[in-house]
């Protein structure tokens, strides 16, 4: 799983049926210091996260389909959690409140 930060949403009317009614979030991926590492993912939201929040991202299809509850969905990246706190090597990297 990856740590990211929600920076926006993607609006799409024409999409694969599995995406209908789902919120697509634009998420920057974060490095171990909590800073954007320059890469990003478009993720399907499953927890109701919003802009600016640090989130837990799953980027693996089989697990994503399990979370979505659709065995055939062409979905790979999903937001599965909102991060409250992240500690790396004893250092508080993220503290959201």
């Amino acid at each position, binding site marked *: 799983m990856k740590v990211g930060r*929600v*920076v*926006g*949403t*993607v*609006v*799409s*009317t*024409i*999409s*694969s049926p*599995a*995406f209908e009614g789902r*919120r*697509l979030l*634009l998420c*920057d991926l974060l490095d171990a210091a909590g800073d954007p590492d*320059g890469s*990003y*993912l*478009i*993720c399907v*939201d499953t927890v*109701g*996260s*919003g*802009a*600016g*929040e640090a989130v837990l991202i799953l980027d693996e*299809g089989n697990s*994503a*389909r399990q979370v979505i509850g659709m065995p*055939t*969905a*062409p*979905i*790979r*990246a999903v937001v599965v959690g909102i991060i409250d706190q992240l500690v790396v090597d004893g250092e508080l990297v993220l503290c959201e409140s």
Partner: protein
Amino acid sequence: MQLARVTGTLVASVKADGLEGVKFLIVQPLNRERQPQGSPVVAADAVHMAGPGELVYIVGAREAAQALPNTFVPVDHAIVGIVDAVEELSRGEGRESR
């Protein structure tokens, strides 16, 4: 999933079984600022409506084939949506009620 720009079309009359009727497009993956990132790839058009110039989002790996009618096909990138808008939000904006 990543943003990409459709830059071309590809026609192949001889294809692996199961790929009949699948439209292939050349897409250039983009970074968050919508600038080209990496090499262009050939992606199957799972929405049947994408065309050159359009901003789309693509899915890679095994999930690409899941987007097609026949899901057991040799495809590693697929266009799964056409982007109308990318809204970059400031903190706290656009939060969905829980």
